[in-house]
């Protein structure tokens, strides 16, 4: 089973990839969000915060007040997703990945991962 630390490493890599890509940063400029990433089968949660096109990672997942978007799944799936080994569309459609937020926010998250890892 994947661990809290592994998930943290993947999310840190995700954050770094976003921040290193000028085009992606530009695409996030209008999208200030608090995104809670929460494992459903482990005591593990993180917060990705997007402000002015920059992504920050916070380990105090359980303390975030009202996230704009909540991404939850089994920890192994979250690790797969945030390391780019799988895309979010299928797990989102088959219900193993839950994303609570507006449709626009769901699309934007999908979009970010495709911009990083798409072919």
């Amino acid at each position, binding site marked *: 089973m994947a661990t809290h630390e592994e998930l943290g490493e993947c999310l840190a890599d995700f954050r770094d990839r976003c921040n290193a890509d000028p085009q992606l940063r*530009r*695409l996030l*400029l*209008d999208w200030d969000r608090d995104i809670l990433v929460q494992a459903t089968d482990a005591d593990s949660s993180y917060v990705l915060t997007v402000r002015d096109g920059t992504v920050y990672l916070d380990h105090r997942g359980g303390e975030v007040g009202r996230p704009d978007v909540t991404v939850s799944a089994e920890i192994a799936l979250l690790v797969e997703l945030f390391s780019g080994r799988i*895309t979010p*569309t*299928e797990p989102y*459609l088959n219900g193993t990945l839950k994303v609570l937020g507006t*449709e*626009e926010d*769901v*699309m*934007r998250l*999908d*979009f970010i991962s*495709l*911009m990083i890892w*798409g*072919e």
Partner: protein
Amino acid sequence: MRKVVSVSLGSSSRDHEVVAEFLGQEFIVSRVGTDGDFERAQQLIRELDGRVDAIGLGGIDVYLYAAGERYALRDGLRLMECARFTPVVDGSGLKNTLERQAVYFLRDRGLLEPGTRVLMVSAVDRFGMAEALAGVGCRLICGDLMFAAGVPYPIEGLEELAKMAKKLLPEMAKMPFHMLYPTGKKQEEKAANAAKFAAYFEQAEVIAGDFHFIKRYSPDRLEQKTILTNTVTQKDVQTLREQGVKWLVTTTPELGGRSFGTNVLEAVLVALLGKRWEEITAEDYLDLLEKLRLEPRLERLN
């Protein structure tokens, strides 16, 4: 009399039926909107299968194109597969021919010239038009990310569009269609985030592409603009006139007071050709379009 029906995920308020003659054959051409109800659209296609000459799919695309690549939308395929006997078309075959010609039609009348600033609200569903616009030297901004995904990123030119499409479309094509395109009642409403994109409309001289995107995102004033689109009703024309639009061009001709979607016209052509859709070539469409002498509708509104 031959019968062609367009089953649309769009609003039923735009339903319409006309009798028209094509190459000496009479057709009843009708459009049935399902107000975004996907299952109803599936059911309707099953009921029409084998009972009409061709079915058009409206308010949804099956195939999107960018730089020679074709991407199939999962929901579009699901609808297409509901018919076993009657050919089902989404208009993409015709868009690639008819809509290119519409661009040359405008160029020949001096309404497009090298350097004309064009906002193409969505290019992957009308790649032929986008390619023709770029080909005649227009400065093209593609709004695919803005209007389909809410991302305020104007795609500048076809090369960038192709790169983005390659990254995004294989996955996005799997998303439920209503997340990518306004269906049902959404077609009648202004988008909540429309103001975010107003500047792109203001900077353009020509606004081209899908009318529902134009309607949903355009600012109140479109002074002196040319609109190059399709599927407008008489009410839409009146609204565009009030917004100050100068020229309205629709890629399909007016039938019974409105311009039907390319899916409708493609369905008519498929019925006339009597061939399997997969066997029809661009040349078949071009030959038939020439025989039919179909021209875009060009109307000065202000």
